[in-house]
């Protein structure tokens, strides 16, 4: 599984990354967490507001710092 954190690297992006790492750790799953900081790459995914979270290439959330539990829900396949 690939989890992408899209954002410029600001505090909120870092917080989302932290929550994603905690979520992955809590679920005990194998997941690669990748930061996408390049604006062109972010725009190519159609993301207009950051931070955003994508799982296996599908954008699940934009413009929000998801909580750890919200990330867990997405990792479990929730919408």
């Amino acid at each position: 599984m690939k989890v992408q954190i899209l954002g410029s690297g600001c505090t909120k992006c870092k917080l989302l990354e932290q929550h994603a790492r905690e979520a992955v750790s809590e679920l005990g799953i194998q997941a690669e967490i990748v930061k996408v900081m390049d604006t062109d790459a972010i725009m190519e995914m159609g993301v207009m507001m950051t931070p955003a979270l994508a799982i296996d290439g599908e954008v699940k959330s934009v413009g929000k710092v998801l909580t750890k539990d919200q990330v867990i829900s997405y990792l479990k396949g929730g919408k």
Partner: protein
Amino acid sequence: MAGCSCGGDCEVKLLYACSGMANTGMLADQVWRKLVRDGNGSGACLAAIGAGISGYVQSAQNATRNIVLDGCMVACGAKIFEKAGLPYEHYVMTDYDVEKGKTPITGDLIEAVAKRVESLINERTKA
């Protein structure tokens, strides 16, 4: 990227145009480009919403306002948003003294319609 980023509380306006084949679609496209150039919001891709591209759909879901410009009352843009279950504001070029298949699209017409739509967008901002 939209003016507001990194989870700020400011208003994020995304603009879309139908860009259909008729003169009215062309007008919608040109008015959209002018509105984006003039800083009325960020341009976004209507086709990507229709195609269900997740990043665009999620961005529309979280935008403060989605402003859809359609050329005519076939309203493909509005129907795409309805199908996707997304909220939107709707402006139709034929509501601005433009006749589908007849009115020539000139620079003056683009300016005039953009001005009228811009003022309606700003009125809603104040409301």
